[in-house]
């Protein structure tokens, strides 16, 4: 995430420099080019106006310095004059000689850099605020409500000992699938809580299935120290419960921390499977980029006592096997809840979108600023013309 954002920022700065440099250079105040409707360029217009004046001189004085014009009759000269004047009029230019020409203004260049710096600075502050807000934002819809156990976490609170997780990376988050099974303790005569041993800060948790299905109606889903849990009413029969659920974990920056301090010690078997797609860049520069947070997703920083394996798994006979990483721990003794990191998840695009928006705002703000500078450099089309 940081790497991506850094590259994006460098790219943006290069682009901004390339695009905005001409605006900040001293040559900005030179008039680029005057435009004259109906004429190819200034030279052609000047020639036409000179010709018009010669014709006018010829017609008013009866003589001309131009030898060709001297040979023409008055009617021919007048015909030419009409054509020339029509052309000038169509170009919305004055076609008779005595026209007062407005003066051309030139603006000073002293304040432009200061103004621009202020504008840029202001936009930078706004963007930084937006970026920080996005970076520190928490998933707002992380809610808890639901499922079951066997190990005792504290009096009246249990957690299943058989837990399997499948994790699939997505954009800005990972999607987890949790499966567990347990037997409702027959000794428990009071209402008790079953905590699902999921990592901290899961959101969008939802129950996929529970067996027996009839049990679902009697369960009350709650949150136990931020972890999904549910209450089993007193007097429930002792029976085997199988439960599966789905949840999401935020990977805003491409990294996920899997841990849950509230659960502390948890005996039994925990197996986690992470689908790991191929990543060309990482495969190519694996030795160099081993620890860098770039695609593809992979598990790192595994706690001691936890086994990490890489395998291929055939999920569907009609499809080729898929590469997975498996984290497992099987121990009758109480061990800490699984703790590791998932690196290389595709980060959220929100920071990039904000950065893009900021660049757009800088560019359009600059355009607006230039546009609002007033008409001090407005071009006077006729200013440089003879006549």
């Amino acid at each position: 995430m940081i790497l991506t954002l850094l590259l994006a920022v460098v790219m943006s700065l290069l682009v901004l420099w390339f695009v905005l440099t001409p605006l900040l250079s001293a040559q900005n105040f030179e008039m680029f080019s005057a435009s004259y409707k109906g004429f190819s360029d200034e030279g052609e217009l000047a020639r036409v106006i000179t010709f018009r004046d010669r014709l006018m001189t010829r017609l008013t004085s009866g003589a001309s310095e131009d030898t060709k014009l001297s040979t023409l009759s008055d009617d021919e000269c007048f015909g030419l004059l009409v054509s020339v004047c029509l052309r000038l009029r169509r170009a919305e230019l004055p076609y008779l000689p005595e026209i007062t020409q407005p003066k051309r203004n030139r603006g000073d260049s002293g304040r432009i850099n200061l103004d621009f710096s202020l504008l840029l600075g202001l936009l930078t502050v706004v963007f930084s605020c937006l970026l920080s807000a996005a970076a520190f934002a928490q998933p707002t819809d992380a809610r808890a409500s639901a499922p079951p156990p066997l190990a005792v976490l504290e009096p009246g609170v249990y957690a299943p000992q058989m837990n399997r997780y499948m994790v699939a990376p997505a954009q800005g988050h990972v999607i987890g699938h949790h499966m567990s099974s347990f037997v409702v303790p027959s000794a428990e005569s009071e209402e008790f809580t079953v905590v699902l041993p999921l990592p901290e800060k899961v959101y969008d948790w939802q129950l996929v299935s529970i067996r027996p299905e009839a049990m679902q109606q009697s369960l009350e889903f709650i949150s136990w120290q931020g972890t999904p849990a549910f209450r089993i009413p007193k007097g429930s029969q002792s029976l085997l419960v199988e439960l599966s659920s789905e949840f999401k974990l935020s990977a805003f920056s491409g990294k996920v921390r899997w841990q849950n301090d509230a659960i502390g010690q948890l005996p039994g078997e925990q197996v986690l499977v992470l689908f790991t797609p191929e990543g060309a860049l990482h495969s190519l520069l694996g030795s160099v980029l081993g620890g860098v947070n770039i695609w593809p997703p992979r598990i790192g920083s595994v706690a001691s006592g936890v086994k990490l394996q890489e395998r291929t798994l055939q999920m569907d006979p009609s499809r080729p096997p898929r590469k997975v990483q498996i984290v497992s721990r099987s121990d009758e003794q109480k061990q800490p809840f699984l703790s590791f990191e998932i690196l290389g998840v595709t980060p959220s695009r929100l920071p990039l979108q904000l950065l893009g928006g900021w660049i757009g705002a800088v560019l359009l703000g600059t355009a607006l600023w230039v546009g609002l500078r007033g008409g001090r450099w407005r071009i006077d089309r006729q200013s440089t013309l003879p006549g």
Partner: protein
Amino acid sequence: MVEIGFFALLLAFCLALYATVMGALAFYKPQSGIIQSGRNALIALNACVLLAAGVLWTALLTHDFSIDYVFRNSAADMPPIYLLTAFWSSLEGSHLLWTMIMSIVVTISLLTMREKNAPLLPGLLVCYGVSLTFMTLLLVWASAPLTRMFPVQEVGQGMNALLQNPYMAAHPPSLFVGYCSLIVPFGYAVAALLRGSFTTDWLVSVRRWTLAGWAILSVGIFLGGKWAYVELGWAGYWAWDPVENSSFMPWLAATSMLHTLLILDKTNRLPRLACFLAGLAFILTFLGTFITRSGVISSVHSFAESNIGPAYLTYVVLWTAVLLVLVTTRGNLLQGAAQAQTWTVSKESALLFTNFFLLFLLALVCVGTLLPLIVEAVRGVKISVQQPFFNAFTPWIGVGLVAILGVGNLMRWKSGKIEDPVTGLLYPALWSAVLTVALTVHKGLDLRSAIGFGLILWTGFVMIMDLVFRLKNLRWNGSLLLKYNRPYLGSWIVHLGFLVAVAGFLGGYRGIQAETVLRHNESTEFYGYTLTNRGMRFSKEYNATFATAVIEARDRQGHLTEVNPIRSKYTNKDEWLNEIGIYSTFWHDLYLVLATFDGNTNQVSLKMHINPTVKFVWTSLVIMVLGAIVGLTHRVKKRTLEVSPNGLLLESATAEDDLYDLTGLPSRLSQRLQSGAVVTGALLLLVFGFSGVAFAAEETGKSRLLYSQELLDIGNELRCPTCQGVSILESETPQSVAMRKEIERQVNEGKNKSEILSFFRQRYGDWILRQPDKDSSFGKTVWALPALGLVLGPVWLVYAIRSSRRREDEDRNEMEKELRAHIQSLKQDGGLA
């Protein structure tokens, strides 16, 4: 890297928007900084889009199936070359390719801009900026190629199997380069209209870009035709289906524009039409994409289901409105727009008629393509307008174009005088008549072929005579022609290519077809060939399995060759596809389609076609592109030399001093040899073009016909219910096969054509007919529209010209009065201050 690619597209969108704003701003503040900044934004945009394209290509080559587009359009078992072409095999990638090429073209046009065109930059920035804003907006919104897909799959779905063909690999990029090249003339036209005048080098730049775009678009269209020919198995290359028409419409507009630019260059006339056509050609590229990509082809109601359809429609309507407003409100400011338009019999008048035929064809194609959509939208009824409708009019347009080509070339600018009309027109008529009669008698040409052949031959000879006259005027100095008259020479070659193409199309009418079932080692006779089935070969390559029939073909001279019609099956498609077996000679193609095969007994059933003069169609492209290249190599500072019969330069202002009077310059032997070589080369090209028609299909009727005559008549009027643009005769879908059987059954029962067509109309609706029903009132209207256009078009032209002259007269009278009064007052005041 994918995220960086996504960000690059986001950045590109911002830059396009910025360039647009800066362009607009530059109209009010034409400061170098503002314009340079906008220009730099477009160049930076190009870098961003190239980066995004690089990311997508990398993802395709490395099978990064976390990207939705890569998953849907590629697979790990595809050949590497098609992994590269998968880039444009679907909508989002095509958009990215289009945007990439457009931004490259824009960058090149900005970097190579002539100094004298610099005043057009504000308009260009707005034009380029708006177009690229639209394209990049699609890339980050409705048609995003770098969208992620989770959970990530291990195997991609693969590319559409029909697109795994070398011609289809090259067809879209060439088409897009052609489309995108047209943005430059469009930008220049809008900029000139906004500015109210052309710049000195406007015409030079616009002509070069239009010609380059036209040539590349021609290549793209021909490649598409070639793909259809070798892949689809209906033995044709052009079916007038909406997808083909979509690329043909901008080509026609660009062709018409090139002719208009010539008139503008030589006579300073039609500036508004030139600007309008420049805009139209570009807008039509988007209209075509709207038709093909929005889903309106299948149903007019389906286009709103995605964001693409409404977005394209909005964009097309917006630019059309802007163009029309600019042409009508600002066009009169352009140089030459309001001058007296006196059209006499002259070269420009001939070009005007050429333009009329081209634009009429454009209107016909446009109406034919859009009418089913409009009718469905307005009346809720589906109709079809397919090949028979277009084929009813296009031959006549072709006749008009060919007839006017030779005569128009002989005429001079602003004068209808034809130099030595007996030698220039009459002798070619006699030669072509003698040759046509001889060939008709000797080769048994039918009336249509004979008339067409005679006309093409006459036009070709007239063109040769025009070349001879021109060389004669240059005192047989071939080097002068090659040095200073390359635009003329280029257009001459292009027009000859056009004649060769028409000859090729004409020969296509004489094709024959048959079918056969051959057991192993069994033989059959077809058009002088002995075809023997030598069994089947099976192979597997990447993601495809090939079943190849080994057919031995021995011609009359005993020459033996192997033809291999193939059926292929791809891992991502259940049905078997055709790979045609073609044995191509100079005069015709032996075209074999493997209809069915039995792998155990090696028995095959074949559809056999003889397609005369197909090679001429492909060769005509080479000739036309060669002509365009010759034209493009012209040194732009020297315009085409116009020399009178007396050897005097008619355009002295643009020629070099040493060429002012050619009368005193005797040509050296080498220069005369060059002249001889030019004329000989032209004659050889001409002979090549027409020999195809002469030698095509000598044995029509001797082979077993594929279908009965009744089935041919009726089947040709019924469309395949599940395909685009083909009849049930050309389709092998189950529905088409069933319909053919039904027709045969009803024919055997004694029913006539009308009864059988009624049966299918009742079952499928009017939509099943390939052309509007001539007996219905609606059908009559549809058929009358082109006829009305053909009549009213010239009338409108005359009216427009006359009213233009009337306005000019009124303006002139008013100005005269004012100037007389002014001169009088100046005289009284003692002259000009």
